């Protein structure tokens, strides 16, 4: 017979908050929370007190005021009568433009060079290595400045195109002028009936997509392939061209040399070109390494098995290796895209009007609202970075190994 042991709850003592493992973690968390809140509270109150001491207020009213300055590249309507808020928006669009252009170009360069680095051709592989090591190991700011200097010093000024003994000539049958101010290119002018061309073009894309489905189904059923790329290209381009030729809706305006500059046509500012290619070449070097790593992560047996099945080397890469490598490549690629976008804030060194140059540069300087502008800019970069990583994560989920 055993004596019943009375299990009485131990009375709660204060020391248990530290020595009892059941409570300890909660105690630590509460202390950490209070400390964090106190710290941030102190920072905010200190900021407000100091702003008050300087006689400065904290408000965003300046965004509604007239900006009064001109911007050299505005993709949305903007004049110096627009507001500071509008100027910030112009900067945001410019930032997005260079980020998108840069990301696409960097990806193309990166994939190409990454594959070339693994080439069995010694010279090609070494050249790719030299590119990667040179661009990766020099700060991107220097590349931006270097490209800018090259454009400024290497290409002729518009004046060189003038006169009988001109030292420079327009390219592409006299339609493109590359100067040290940027590239002047032909620009489409939409005349009456352009909608017809647009509709035909959209229909062509749809039919190309439908053809792709048909070709795929046919290949699955019969095993025979069609030259899909060329047929698709013809499907997309030819009908629109024929309609445009018939209707005469879309014409091209060619730049012409006027008193100071080429006028008419499109103009790509050299600051955009310098920034775009510097960012693309720099980030492309990192992407090349990521691509190479991704390809090397695929077991050698995969390519050997594909070769044993009689698949040609180019198709082994595009059909067997790359789809698998993408799973390894995508996650680090996200951070490269984020880096490129954030690095685009170096635009100001070449005078490209990104958001850092308009909102965080001229507007901040003219209105003296440092804190407000900084917060807005940080908010913008944070938002855009989160958006990019969300999109890329969704894409990553779609190519990831489906495990069931």
């Amino acid at each position, binding site marked *: 017979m055993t004596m019943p042991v009375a299990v009485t709850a131990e009375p709660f003592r204060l020391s248990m908050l530290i020595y009892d493992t059941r409570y300890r973690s909660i105690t630590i968390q509460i202390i950490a929370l209070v400390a964090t809140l106190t710290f941030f509270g102190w920072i905010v109150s*200190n*900021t407000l007190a100091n702003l008050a*001491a300087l006689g400065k207020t904290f408000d965003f009213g300046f965004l509604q005021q007239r900006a009064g*300055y001109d911007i050299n590249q505005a993709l949305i309507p903007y004049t110096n009568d627009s507001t500071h808020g509008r100027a910030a928006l112009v900067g945001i669009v410019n930032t997005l433009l260079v980020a998108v252009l840069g990301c696409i170009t960097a990806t193309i360069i990166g994939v190409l060079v990454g594959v070339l680095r693994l080439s069995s051709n010694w010279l090609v592989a070494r050249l790719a290595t030299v590119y990667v090591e040179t661009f990766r190991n020099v700060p991107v700011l220097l590349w931006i400045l270097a490209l800018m200097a090259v454009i400024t010093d290497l290409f002729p000024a518009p004046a060189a195109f003038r006169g009988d003994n001109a030292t420079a000539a327009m390219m592409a049958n006299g339609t493109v002028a590359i100067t040290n101010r940027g590239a002047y290119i032909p620009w489409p002018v939409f005349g009456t009936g352009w909608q017809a061309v647009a509709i035909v073009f959209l229909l062509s894309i749809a039919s190309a997509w439908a053809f792709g489905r048909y070709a795929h189904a046919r290949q699955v059923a019969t095993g025979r392939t069609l030259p899909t790329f060329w047929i698709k290209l013809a499907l997309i381009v030819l009908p629109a061209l024929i309609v445009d030729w018939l209707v005469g809706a879309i014409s091209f305006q060619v730049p012409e040399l006027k*008193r100071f500059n080429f006028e008419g046509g499109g103009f790509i500012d050299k600051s955009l070109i310098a920034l775009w290619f510097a960012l693309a070449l720099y980030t492309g070097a990192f992407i090349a390494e990521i691509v190479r790593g991704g390809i090397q992560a695929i077991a050698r047996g995969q390519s050997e098995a594909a070769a044993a099945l009689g698949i040609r080397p180019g198709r082994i890469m595009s059909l067997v290796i790359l789809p698998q490598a993408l799973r390894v490549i995508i996650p680090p690629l996200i951070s490269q895209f984020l880096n490129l976008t954030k690095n685009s804030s170096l635009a100001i060194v070449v005078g490209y009007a990104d958001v850092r140059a308009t909102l965080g540069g001229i507007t901040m300087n003219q209105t003296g609202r440092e*804190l407000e502008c900084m917060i807005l800019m940080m908010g913008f970069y944070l938002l855009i970075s989160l958006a990019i990583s969300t999109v890329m994560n969704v894409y990553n989920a779609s190519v990831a190994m489906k495990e069931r």
Partner: protein
Amino acid sequence: MHKGILLGAFAGMALAAGAASAGTLDDVKARGTLKCGVNAGLAGFAAPDASGRWEGFDVAYCRALAAAVLGDAEKVEFTPTTTETRFTALVSGEIDVLARNSTWTFTRDVDLKLDFIGVNYYDGQGFMVSKDLGVTSAKELDGATVCIQTGTTTELNLADFFKTNGMTYQPVPIQTEAEARQQFLGGACDAYTTDASGLAAARSGYPNPENYIILPEIISKEPLGPVVRHGDNQWADIGRWTFNALVSAEELGVTKANLDEMKGSQNPEIRRLLGVEGSLGKMFGLNDDWAYNAIKAGGNYGEIFAATIGEGTPSNLARGLNGQWTDGGLLYSPPFR
């Protein structure tokens, strides 16, 4: 994490703002050096010479102020600033005074919480073009590409000027004089616009200065002067009267050379200025020989002007508006009494 970054930036600004509170004179005395914000390189106004020593019109003011406050003209720490960073550097307390051809405007004075302590150079915005262009007036610049220093009043004046005259232009924003030189000399812009004095100074450093002309139009008023933070009246007074001392010295004929001799002058204003009589310096916390030291540093206003940007120097600027009021200029110091 993200919140942390945001608030961290807050904290940085808050701490910087904390350092900017009143008592600049005490800070400078305790530190033993004057922190002066200057142009990152504009020949004649502020640029390091071949041996790395800062020289120029604005630099001379910094030296005079250091001499007045600390008794030694060499106790200056020069901080090169760009047009974009200059006011932030001042307001955050990174520098004690900004002498960087900055234009005195209403919003800068009132909204940016700055105090302009005087006008050391009456200027106006002009245009410089290459002679080959065949332009003789700024009104012929329709369609031109114009290099412009970003974050300046000139940027706004330029927009206004082209708008009023119904002309268009392509701005090329630049940050420093060196960048402007590269773009302008390379032909990447047709015209370069900034204060006329700045144009003259810049041109003096070009390989073939005679190939460039400054167009006759002056499209704005640009009163340039040293700046201090708003709210520290004692420090603003010291800055203002140091400048006035240099101007008065020229008016009264006190030069670097005859400074000691002038101490024995019978003119009561000279005696008060040089601290022989009365105790003006004590009134704002300096020694009575403050103005003596300031003038000793680089001479009076006229001597500084002649040595840095005046006729005969590479900038070759005439006194013009910057002459004494007695000579038809605008310089007019309030009396020392």
